[in-house]
């Protein structure tokens, strides 16, 4: 092996590696490290799992945590059950072979909400469902039962473009001769889709599900934009991201606590990691395609 190659390899990858390690990889690991310390007195004192014990045994913090976790699961489930099928429908329509030049226009229009900031998305939907305007005669965001599903559907409206594009790309990759063979056999559009195209793109759904999981368990922006950091009514829209933010940043009626914040972050990280690792370890080895 050429020694110069090692030198070039290091010189070229080091800048990216340095930024990535210092501001992305290391902070994640350090979160776990910090969660084992108590720094309230100004001096870091190793306390082992004390912060975790506090989080799960203190009545207020543990109630908030389980509430946020349950809400987050609901937030994820709504995305999975509404956003993914809707994305599939849109992708199927875009690739049905019945559009000509208009495909690009539809694709662009359907994706525009994804390019918006949550501030606009939150504002416009709050305006539209405002009971004063009479479009919906019920305070959807003001009721504990409907607030979270409402926010989830706003988020689906914004991000349905992502599964749509993944599935669209996968459907475009279906080989033409396979489709031609189906056509020759007299298969109609509906049965070609379910019998030929769908099985070929099916592996995509696992990946989309896991990305949706990671993304929703990392969610924060829309809930914060609509309801602030102590999202009501009565914490019914509180998810793990807002709980995390409130813990380390503080809010009205709650002091900022960096140690407990790092603890909450580590728990969320663990929740994400366990499911993701199980998915990639047991079901798929999809990352392989990135190996050299």
């Amino acid at each position, binding site marked *: *092996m050429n020694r110069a*190659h090692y030198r*070039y390899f290091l010189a*070229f990858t080091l*800048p*990216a*590696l340095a*930024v*990535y390690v*210092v*501001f*992305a*990889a290391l*902070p*994640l690991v*350090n*979160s776990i490290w*910090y969660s084992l310390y108590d720094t309230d007195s100004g001096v870091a004192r190793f306390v082992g799992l004390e912060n975790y014990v506090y989080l799960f045994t203190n009545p207020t913090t543990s109630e908030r945590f389980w509430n946020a976790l349950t809400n987050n699961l609901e937030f994820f489930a709504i995305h999975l059950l509404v956003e993914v099928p809707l994305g599939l429908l*849109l992708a199927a*329509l*875009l690739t049905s072979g*019945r*559009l000509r030049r*208009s495909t*690009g226009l*539809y694709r*662009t*229009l*359907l*994706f525009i909400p994804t*390019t918006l*900031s*949550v*501030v*606009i998305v939150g*504002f*416009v939907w709050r*305006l*539209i469902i405002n009971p004063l305007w009479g479009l919906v005669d019920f305070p959807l965001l003001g009721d504990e039962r409907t607030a979270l599903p409402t926010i989830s559907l706003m988020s689906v409206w914004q991000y349905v473009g992502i599964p749509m594009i*993944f599935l669209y*790309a996968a459907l475009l990759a279906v080989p033409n001769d396979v489709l031609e063979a189906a056509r020759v056999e007299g298969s109609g559009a509906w049965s070609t889709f379910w019998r030929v195209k769908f099985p070929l793109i099916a592996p995509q759904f696992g990946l989309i599900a896991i*990305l949706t999981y990671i993304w929703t368990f*990392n969610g924060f*922006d829309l809930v914060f*934009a609509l309801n602030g950091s102590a999202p009501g009514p009565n914490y019914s829209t509180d998810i793990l991201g807002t709980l*995390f*933010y409130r813990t380390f*940043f503080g809010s009205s009626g709650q002091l900022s606590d*960096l140690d407990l*914040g790092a603890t909450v*972050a*580590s728990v969320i*990280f663990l929740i*994400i990691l366990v499911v*993701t690792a199980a998915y990639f370890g047991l079901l798929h080895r*999809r*990352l392989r*395609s*990135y190996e*050299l």
Partner: protein
Amino acid sequence: MKSNRDRAGSLVTHALLIFFALLAVAPILVIVVNSFKTTQGIFGQPFALPNAETFSLGGYERVFTRGQFVTNYGNSLIVTVGSTVATLVLATLAAFALTEYKVRFAPLVGGFFVLGIMLPIRLGTVPIIKTMISWQLMDTLVALILVYTAMSLPLAIALLMTYFKAVPGAIKEAARIDGAGELRTLTITLPMVRPGLAAVASVTMLPIWNDLWFPLILAPSKENQTVTLGVQQFVGQFLNDYPALLGALTLGAVPLIVLFVVFSRQFIQGLSAGIGK
């Protein structure tokens, strides 16, 4: 051999797509159209176009005089362009090295980067705050640029590697025989990965411009707010001035929508090639 059934199917396809496209775009149009109206016009006929009586640019005037909109815009521009350029430069160097030099630990380094596509970087916020405090970068745009660059590198590197792999080896050999150094060899291949660079730039910019989390935490002061955070606070402050609010929201969204419409092909390529593999 166009049958009636085909025609009907095509009609239904268009009808459904038009319905969903309207659902996607109409709410945004409501904001944009109403931003050109008076308060009475907005609440009197929220879904009507502005007419001689309701048309007003007063909202926009107040956005520019009362808020720090110009500053916010400048900040967003600095942060987004700065992070995108830094990401492009660092990712190009790394992706070139990862595909070009077959050293033993190259797959390991590549895998380590690719892992970052899935890592929820936000969960490292507490240590990031501590680092920024000790480096005295708290409440600066530099802090944002550093974090966003770190966040964008994994996808950028994974994407660019697929493009660098497609560059014929003969071109690089020819460059080296002509006496080009490694950096020069890299720049010679750049025109061939230009679609990749465009794809990376477009997928990098969008989440940075729209991010609320890190501006809120790392650069919250009035002088350093990005436009997304600025508009968010504007919404809180001017809740009774709807024309100004809608104007601010429109101005915050327009640059990205325009950019996306212009570069939508590159963007969609980047998105589907980066993760859909």
